[in-house]
């Protein structure tokens, strides 16, 4: 752990500022080659935000193509099993392509078209962002290349197949840890050479400014819908909101509209992996220090020299040494509490939700479910906990079977 002075929340100030800062965090630490494209993207996004036609097109796509609003579902049997507060699931798993990632990829694809880009690249960990990017590109007729770590290709095979069926080219990344972090490196290198005609659809609230802001804004539909649905279905805001945090896009989208509602506690859940030892988890907000990775300043797992540490999570989508800069800001201001959930706890929550509710959750989202179950047990039955169920678990079935197989043999 590193020493950090508590910073106070800048009330009413727009986050991020013009330079892409959330307090100290964020910024734009990239090679000069990319700065013009990032400036163009920031400018174009500002215009698109104010453009009624752009917003209407996106709204219509979210409704008729994605199937929004996604339901807020009362998990009664799961709540009863926990014996405390009521657990409500924000069903992002029911979106087209099976996760929240499509909210962002449609928005960014529309931006790419506005900028006249003719090719799209993306990185992916669990493959959910890759599938969502491939889908948006198919919908708009753009060629798409997805970089994916070789280890993730192995453990998320169904998504690789889907991306190829959708016409995307999946390029395996064999450098480094062969996971999400290396896929981001490779996508950035592609972009260094292709920046004139290519848009890079980053999948999380990480990377250089303006990506953390753009991805958060496109994902904020999750939180806005949740607030409205809570008012309709509960008659009030929830007592607690929980979301898993890898790079942190579903959590940022869920939390951002709630940040101003200071009576609602927000809990992010990082991947606790096997243990709290370095290399055994992927929880920079809990165990890391501020540093620079992939173009922004945020909490990161690094050694004393500044080399990125290896991380581990059973869930490919959380297996990342960094985290979005706004989460670092929320951590330091105390607005969001960040906890950890181990691999085995996430797997147990996966089982519980499957057995009690008939829902196969993504292993990523199972981390949030696990934490919600633990917190529900300590709270009275008239309280409501909302969990962002960010994705569905079909993609994980084979990997979970393999892990179980391994366990029976050892």
């Amino acid at each position, binding site marked *: 752990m590193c020493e950090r002075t508590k910073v106070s929340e800048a009330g009413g100030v727009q986050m991020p500022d013009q330079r892409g800062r959330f307090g100290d965090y964020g910024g*734009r630490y*990239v090679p000069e*080659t990319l700065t*013009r494209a990032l400036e163009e993207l920031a400018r174009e996004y500002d215009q698109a935000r104010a453009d009624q036609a752009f917003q209407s097109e996106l709204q219509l796509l979210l409704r008729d193509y994605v199937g929004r609003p996604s339901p807020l579902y009362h998990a009664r049997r799961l709540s009863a099993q926990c014996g405390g507060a009521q657990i409500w699931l924000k069903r992002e798993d029911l979106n087209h392509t099976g996760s929240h990632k499509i909210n962002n990829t449609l928005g960014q694809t529309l931006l790419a078209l506005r900028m006249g880009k003719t090719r799209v690249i993306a990185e992916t960990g669990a493959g959910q962002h890759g599938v969502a990017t491939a889908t948006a590109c198919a919908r708009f007729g753009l060629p798409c290349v997805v970089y994916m770590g070789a280890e993730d290709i192995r453990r998320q095979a169904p998504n690789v197949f889907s991306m190829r069926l959708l016409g995307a080219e999946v390029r395996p990344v064999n*450098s480094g840890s062969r996971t999400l972090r290396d896929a981001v490196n490779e996508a950035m*290198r592609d972009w*260094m*050479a292709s920046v004139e005609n290519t848009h890079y659809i980053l999948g999380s609230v990480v990377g250089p400014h303006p990506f953390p802001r753009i991805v958060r804004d496109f994902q904020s539909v999750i939180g806005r819908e949740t607030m409205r649905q809570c008012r309709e279905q509960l008659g009030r805001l929830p007592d607690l909101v929980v979301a898993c945090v890898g790079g942190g896009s579903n959590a940022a989208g869920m939390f951002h509209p709630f940040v101003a509602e200071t009576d609602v506690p927000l809990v992010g859940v990082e991947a606790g992996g096997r243990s709290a030892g370095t290399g055994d988890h992927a929880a920079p907000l809990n165990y890391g220090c501020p540093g620079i990775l992939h173009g922004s300043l945020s909490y990161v797992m690094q050694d004393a020299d*500044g080399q990125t540490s290896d991380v581990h999570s059973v869930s490919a989508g959380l297996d990342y040494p960094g985290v979005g800069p706004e989460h670092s800001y929320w951590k330091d201001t105390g607005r969001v509490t960040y906890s950890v959930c181990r691999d085995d706890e996430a797997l147990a929550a996966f089982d519980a939700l499957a057995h009690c509710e008939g829902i196969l959750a993504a292993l990523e989202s199972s981390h949030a479910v696990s934490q919600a179950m633990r917190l529900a047990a300590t709270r009275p039955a008239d309280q409501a906990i909302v969990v962002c169920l960010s994705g569905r678990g079909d993609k994980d079935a084979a990997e979970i079977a393999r892990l179980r197989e391994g366990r029976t043999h050892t």
Partner: protein
Amino acid sequence: MSAIDQLFQQRRAAGRKAFLPFLTAGDPDLEFTQAVVRELAQRGCDICELGIPYSDPIADGPVIQASYTRALEHHVQLDDILRHIQAITPTLAMPLVTMVTYSIIYRQGLDDYVSRAKAAGIAGAIVPDLPVEEAAPLATICRREDFSLIQLVTPTTPTERALRIADSSTGFLYYVTVTGITGERAALPPAIVDDVAKLRESTHLPICVGFGISRPEQVRLLAPVADGLIVGSAIVRRIAAAADRPRAEVLQDVGSYVSELIAALRAAE
């Protein structure tokens, strides 16, 4: 005035161009890095760029990436690198600068990094992921410490921005030939000669050109418009052979390669 400023002042006065080789510190080990640096100085190289290995280099192509990976697999650490540099700089006629990610500088602390690098006899830093908007904190320290902060201009940089970058750089300006990552290229973009010439008219700062350069004809093409030429991947690729060839042979190979390029540079002066 840093050692880099002095060097270019002398070279410009004499109508000479500079040759700047790049190699990765600790590939395959720091003793060999010391030997190669000495060899490069003896061959008449002007400034040596030493790459500090980093786990996630996004501006580098496969050859330099692989050299960083090899060095890190042997657990080379910043302390060791600086100690081995410090051991050779007092008797080295050629100034050294590091190519180092801001991730490493930030982690060490800006002041701390600059003072440790200076103590090791290093004259400056090229920080490939620190654009001009983010550079002020480090630039302030570097000016105070007379430590060159060499910034980069690329084909995607608009002219007005290039001048702003030149204003905040010291030592020299690093002109990147291509929109892309490091690595040898058969052909360079045809506009590069004019682009460098144009920029050189608008700044007093020396301009060194790098990325993609590996052949004598490329040296001859660029030498007339630049103050210096930078060659990296072609040297790193030769050093990589040290894994399964006698080191004396590799040293000889690297040495005669840079001699060939320096001869092309002299012919173009």
